[in-house]
């Protein structure tokens, strides 16, 4: 092997950037910019703002990647406790927006603690499970479960059902990847309907119940909540195999679609690029997920493995939930399409997550022969 190649690899290694992953993320973001441009009625302001946000997020990712995984492992517990404290703070004196308390005012700026928890929960669970040999004992797993339930309930109470379920799944993925016994997983699947019923009666607000009901039968409320899903399905369906072409989607350009450049951006994409475009987009997402899996399998210790695996799978859940909701197979829970939807603090969190993946991929302890 020539020295030339060796040095090249070293540079990326040195700045702790995983090139294959970065390539996937950048491709995806570029696609996103094109669709936002179309969905917003060719609004350059929005593009510039999205680019700025992208720049900031990449900066955060870069920064996070510089920190070795052992640091996250050490700070797992304090981070988790602070996060939970902030969630309690939100419930007590949070700022109300859109009928929910999600922000907390810390003088200089407003922060959304649920965003912190998107990373704090998997880090905490990975730390907790990796303390003992794997697979974990059932009694130990139950403690892990408790660590998931606490923040989930706090966020569900805000109320922010979508985020709370995503955070719960990020924790559950750690348990799954750690080798939780299949029997327990089976029991869990059986118990889900019961949990669902409990949520329905004790935690869901009327508007959330409405969403579920309209989801089951959108045509029942074509003027209200169902309107979104119906218009979205028309947009996707009328895109056909090849799509109507960039900037040519009637559903989006004539403003039949709600939340065109944010949550429903996938409908715009589907209308303008058709099934062929969707398969292309899905390939990029699958590529990123596969790269994440490779990174996690190659990670050096249990903590890194579990964390990387959980981040990767959670990313996929975002994609699946968003695409599922706009195409009518999942309820509308208000989850953006990662890296393609316009805006959101969620992009920074997402990129921070990828920063952790890159840190795990590039910061390897060197064992002397």
């Amino acid at each position, binding site marked *: 092997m020539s020295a030339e190649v060796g040095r090249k690899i070293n540079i990326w290694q040195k700045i702790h950037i995983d090139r294959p992953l970065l390539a996937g993320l950048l491709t995806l973001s570029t696609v996103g910019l094109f669709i936002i441009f179309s969905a*917003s*009625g*060719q*609004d350059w*302001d929005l593009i510039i703002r999205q680019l700025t946000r992208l720049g900031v997020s990449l900066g955060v990712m870069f920064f996070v990647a510089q920190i070795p995984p052992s640091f996250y492992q050490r700070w797992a517990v304090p981070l988790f406790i602070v996060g939970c404290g902030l969630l309690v703070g939100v419930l007590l004196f949070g*700022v*109300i*927006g*859109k*009928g929910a308390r999600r922000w907390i005012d810390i003088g200089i700026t407003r922060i959304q603690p649920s965003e912190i928890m998107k990373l704090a929960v998997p880090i905490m669970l990975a730390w907790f499970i990796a303390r003992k*040999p*794997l*697979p974990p004992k059932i009694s130990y797993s139950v403690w892990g479960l408790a660590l998931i339930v606490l923040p989930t309930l706090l966020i569900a109470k805000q109320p922010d059902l979508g985020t709370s379920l995503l955070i719960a799944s990020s924790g559950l*993925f750690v348990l*799954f*990847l*750690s*080798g939780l016994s299949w029997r327990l997983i089976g029991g869990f699947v059986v118990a889900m309907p019961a949990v669902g019923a409990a949520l329905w009666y004790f935690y869901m607000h009327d508007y959330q119940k409405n969403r579920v009901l309209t989801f089951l039968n959108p045509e029942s409320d074509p*003027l209200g909540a169902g*309107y979104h899903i119906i*218009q979205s*399905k*028309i*947009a*996707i*369906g*009328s*895109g*056909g*195999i090849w799509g109507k072409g960039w900037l040519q989607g*009637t*559903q989006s*350009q*004539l*403003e*039949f679609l709600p939340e065109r450049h944010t949550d429903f951006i996938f409908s715009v994409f*589907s209308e303008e690029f*058709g*099934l062929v475009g*969707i*398969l292309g987009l*899905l390939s990029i997402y*699958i590529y990123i*997920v*596969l790269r994440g*899996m490779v990174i*996690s*399998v190659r990670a050096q210790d*249990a903590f890194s*493995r*579990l964390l990387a*695996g959980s981040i990767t*799978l959670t990313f*996929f859940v975002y994609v*699946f939930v968003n*695409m*599922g909701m706009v*195409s*009518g*197979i999942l309820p509308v829970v208000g989850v953006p399409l990662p890296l393609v939807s316009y805006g959101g603090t969620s992009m920074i969190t997402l990129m921070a997550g990828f920063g952790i993946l890159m840190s795990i991929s590039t910061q390897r302890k060197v064992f002397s022969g």
Partner: protein
Amino acid sequence: MLNWRKRVAIRDHLAEANLFVRRTIAALVVVLILVGSLVNNLYYLQVDKYQDYQTRADGNRIKVQPVAPNRGLIYDRFGRILAENSPFYSLDIVPEEVDDLEKLLAQIHQLIELDQDTVEDFKKDVAQQRRKFKPVTLKSQLTETETAILSVNQHKLGGVYIEARLKRYYPYKDLTTHAIGYVAKINQRDADNLELEGKSANYEGTFDIGKQGVEKYYEELLHGQVGYQEVEVNNRGRPIRTLSQQPPVPGQDLILNLDIDMQQLAKDALGERRGAVVVLDAKNNGVLALYSNPSYDPNMFVHGISSKNYKALLDNKSRPLINRTTQGRYPPASTIKPHLGLLGLEENLITTKTRIWDPGYYQIKGIEHKYRDWKSWGHGWVDIYRAIEESCDVYYYDLAVRLGMDKISDFMTQFGFGELTGIDIYEETSATMPSREWKYGRFRQPWYAGDTVSIGIGQGYWTTTPLQLATSVSVLANEGMHYEPRLLKATQNETGTLPVPPQDRPPIQVKSENNWQIIKTAMQGVVEKPTGSGHKAYSGVEYHAAGKTGTAQVINIAQDEEYDADKIAEKYRDNAMFVGFAPVDNPQIAVAVVIENVGGGGKNAAPVARTMMDYYFANYQEAKP
């Protein structure tokens, strides 16, 4: 050797790694299954059902649109309309529907008048257009004739639409600006605020929002609740007809305490002079008149003020944009002598028997500097009555120094000086009630005895707004009862009228109720005794009024200089002030008048106050003295 007695869990790293790989593969399988189900569903929508959805997209002609609620109207206390919604016609063009824009503009120009600026602005708007097929306004506020001509010719003008919109209109123009404020187009900052407060949905379809005055303060009451309608649209997305609707809930109407006639009277009385007039209903501090001169026409802002007009307003040396009644900071001058006198009585530093020799100046012991009386040869022997009636300065220099700044500061704050009055508009300053701490915080300097001397005649660091002065006089008139001034009298919707209760603050507690009487009698002397400084202005009135004049120095006059109005540039001339209430034994109205740079308060401000009081007693039945 390892210690086998203690059970140590040995990690089998290889086994763990293998377990993880197996789990990851399992996860990958699930991922692929889920992706498969997504694709399967998308295939169903886009291939199997393509024809169906394609037809529905083409035939998609039904849109849900927000319907903005009608904004509540604003009336004065006698039901005269101060802010209404009137229809305006505007000429809109959808650029995408026009083949040759230049030709179309020329065509329109032949029909109606179009000046170059309008056309330039329009072209700029078209260039910056954010969304395709969105109409761009060429000319707003079409006249009736223009509307008629364009409507007749509309079939020849493809892409031209005439839109009727309800816009706010203020029939009394500049008369109500500083009290009512105005609405104008929702800008980015408003939009961000609405988003933050979770009100964005309610403002879909709303173009304007309250920017100042009552319009801003009561935005929530005035705005109402958005409605929705289902409309059929053409293939360009423009509505053709309404299919069904959920009507909006209109905003509430507001009835103000304001009396528009009194407002007009204040404007006329001030004439060309810069200044402010505040008239309060002394029984509850309802605001009868709140006028700041000069003012401006708020209707300009409703339709988007041109940069030329806006610059003219900004550059105007008389500063019409400032609401002098609540934002003007004026030294109170002698108008606060009654308040200080009350404090002197309360502290037993003076009684009605106390007399002071006024040689025409005052000196702090051991200091050379002479603080002059406005009457350079002095008032001679002065008691509290004469000190107020003739506005003796030396008496108050002495009293202020004996009281000390801490007591003055505490007591005057109870009258509302140095604090927001709580009036229902946001454009208000608290002005300054100085104190030891305030001066140190502001200038990093200690409070000097000389500072207190100036405070005795309402000069120095002390500033007040005309509304604070009126409120403080109302507190005096009501012997300590303190109500916040209120513009809003009642709200009204289809279910009825709801009066707004007055909002009170902690009343001023005195040791001797008689002290109030002493001060009121002295203030009555100001206008009723021949030697009183407000006597001339109030000669021949049919009711018993009480008041206090004030003449505020705008610049410092050097030790040996005489104030000579003729020699001094206008902007350095004295401010004329007057505060008063009537009737003395059953106060119903409190007034404060400030006129900038015109000279003495007795001569200039007191007549304006009298005009307001005369009008009140002539026109308000319940008020006959």
